[in-house]
């Protein structure tokens, strides 16, 4: 679990890296983010090793 709820912006490179980090460890990384934009971006990228939880 990674709390990124105070980050104002995450780009696709960061998400791809985080998913790669999780994949190497055969885990699913849960990213807590504020706003739905990160979730939409992650869904576009279809990263099975990364799950975004939106904190409202």
């Amino acid at each position, binding site marked *: 679990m990674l709390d990124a709820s105070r980050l104002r912006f995450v780009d696709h*490179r960061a998400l791809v890296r985080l998913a790669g980090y999780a994949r190497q460890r055969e885990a699913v990384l849960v990213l807590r983010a504020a706003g739905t934009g990160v979730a939409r*971006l992650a869904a*576009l990228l279809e990263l099975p090793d990364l799950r975004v939880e939106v904190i409202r």
Partner: protein
Amino acid sequence: MRTGPAAGHSGYHHEALCYSSDEELLATVLPFLLGGVEAGEPTFVALGERTGGLVRSALPAGVKVEFLPGGDIYARPTVAIRTYRRLLAELVAEGANQIRIVGEVPRIALGPTWDWWARYEAAINRAYDDWPLWSMCAYDTRIMPGIVRADVDVTHPYVVTPDGQHLPNPGYLPPEAFLCQQRPVPPDPIQASRPLVELTGPSAAQARAEVQRAGQGLLPDDEFDDFVVAVSETVTNGLRHGQPPVRFRLWRGTDRIVATVSDAGPGPADPYAGLLPSDAAELGGLGLWITHQSCNHVTHYRDADGFTLRLTAGRPPAG
């Protein structure tokens, strides 16, 4: 075993159907759909409300033709590509030997945003070629501008004539040849005014901050956030893969925000850049693809000063 003109063909059979009356549309589309049902092939209609209604009411009751929400699928070219690729992969995994689809881009796409739909029509010759798809792209010649007709005539390798003949198109241009052409890109009328923001060599964070400051409150939150992502990806690409100076300009109108990002380089070498996700992420292809998913229009041009990408959020001009 595939049926119809695509029999013996292994990939995508992409036909243009240019019709001049509702009767011509139905005379061509109904046999196409009923033939698919008879052959046990998954058969779909992705037309607009009016034409879809015409077809629906002309089909026999209970026939196994599925109607897709044409307006949603054709919201953006990249949305259509993503949706269809997923659908085709699922159907083939379930055992389909051929899939039939008749579709049409929405009427609004025939206006100032046509250029990215023209690129779509070219790119899908590759994007759907992994699957046994036979599709008809329907165009009403009564409302079809000349530039649209010219592009349709070179992006479809096959045509279906109003009397139902399925023929190769001798004017077809392979997608790479079409996509590498330099097209005139008329400026958005909003660009006649002075930009609200003009920066040379901004960081992606600076560009994002300017968009946040200048564009806040104009668009729904999700749409605005996606535009911020698109600007950020585009500026990052310019800085990483373009040649300096990178210039960022932003305009705000009553119903849209327009940004341009220019650099002195030649732009991406991949003719499919933006339309298909690139495996070569280090070349910026994924960022450009995300940009095409996140804006209501994206276009680009090259001139003596280099390469420019123009992004529009909100409502693009209707023409």
